C-alpha cells in the first residue's frame, strides 16, 4: 500500500498522458485536439518534476545569505567548474554543512519545455483561426468534405 502511495504521482501522470493522447486521436474538433495535446504535454511536465524530487530534500533555494560568496561555490559544484580559474581557491574552502536539496535541473528543463508547449499551442490556435476563416468550420468532417470537393473541382483548373 505504501508503494502505491509513494508512486501515485506516476499513476496520475500515466492517466493524464493516456487521456491526452486519446483526446488527440478521438476528437474531430481542431480545438479539442489541441486541448488533448496540451494535457498530454502537461503530463510530461509533471513527469519531469517528479524526477527531480529527492525524498526529504529541501527546495533548491539558497537560504543562508551569510558569506554568500563561499556558500555559493560550495552549494553548486557547477560554479566551481565554470570558474575554473580559481579552482585552487575553492579547494581551500572550509567544509560547509551539507544540505539535501531536490534536484533543480529537471525544473529548469521543464521550464524550457513549457515555453515550447506555449509556442506550439499558439501556432496550433493560430492555424485553427485561419482554418476557421478559410473553411468556415473547425470540425474535421466538414473540412475533409470541403477538401474533397475542392479536389474534384481542382481537376478542371
Amino acid at each position, binding site marked *: 500500500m505504501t508503494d502505491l502511495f509513494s508512486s501515485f504521482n506516476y499513476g496520475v501522470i500515466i492517466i493524464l498522458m493516456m487521456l491526452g493522447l486519446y483526446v488527440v486521436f478521438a476528437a474531430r474538433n481542431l480545438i479539442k485536439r489541441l486541448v488533448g495535446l496540451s494535457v498530454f504535454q502537461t503530463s510530461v511536465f509533471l513527469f519531469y518534476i517528479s524526477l527531480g524530487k529527492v525524498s526529504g530534500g529541501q*527546495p533548491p*533555494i*539558497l537560504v543562508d*545569505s551569510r558569506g554568500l*560568496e563561499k556558500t*555559493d*561555490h560550495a552549494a553548486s559544484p557547477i*560554479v566551481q567548474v*565554470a*570558474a575554473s*580559474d*580559481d579552482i585552487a581557491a575553492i579547494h581551500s574552502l572550509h567544509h560547509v554543512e551539507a544540505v539535501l536539496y531536490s534536484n533543480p535541473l529537471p525544473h529548469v528543463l521543464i*521550464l524550457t519545455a513549457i*515555453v515550447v508547449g506555449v509556442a506550439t499551442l*499558439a501556432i496550433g*490556435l*493560430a492555424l485553427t*483561426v485561419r482554418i*476557421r*476563416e478559410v*473553411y*468556415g*468550420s473547425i470540425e474535421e468532417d466538414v473540412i475533409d468534405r470541403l477538401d474533397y470537393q475542392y479536389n474534384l473541382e481542382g481537376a478542371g483548373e
Partner: protein
Amino acid sequence: MNEHGILRVVSKLLIPFIAIFAFYVQFHGDYGPGGGFQAGVILAASVILYALIFGLEAAKSAVPPSWVRFGMAMGVFLYGGTGVATWLLGGEFLNYSVFTPDHPSHGQHYGILLVELGVLLAVASVMLAIFYAFGSRPVNHPGED
C-alpha cells in the same frame, strides 16, 4: 462607458503593482526563485489585463505593436549579444567569466543579469505579440454559429 466600474478601478490599482512584481521576480531571480521567463509573462499579463478591461486599442496605444516587434528582436539580441561579447573577449560563447577575468564569479553575475534581461524583453514581447495577433483579427464568422 462606465460599465464594469469595479473592474476598471481595481485593475487601475493593480496593474502598476503587477508590473512592479514582474520586476521583483526578474531581479530577485538572482537570489531566489524567479527569472526572465516568469517575469516576462507577468509583465505581459499586466498589459493583457489592461487590454481586457480598457480595450485592445487602448493597450495598443500604451504599448504599440511596433515596440513589441522591436522588443522581440531586441530581447534575442541582448541574449545573443552577450554571447558575442564573450566571444570578442576571447571566451567561449556565453562564458560570462571573461567579463571580469580577475574575479570570474562577478562576471557570471553580470552576464546572467544581461541574459535574463534579454529573456524578459523577448518573453514579454512575444506574449503580447501573440495576444495582439489573436485579438486584432477581424471578427467575421462565416458559416454556422
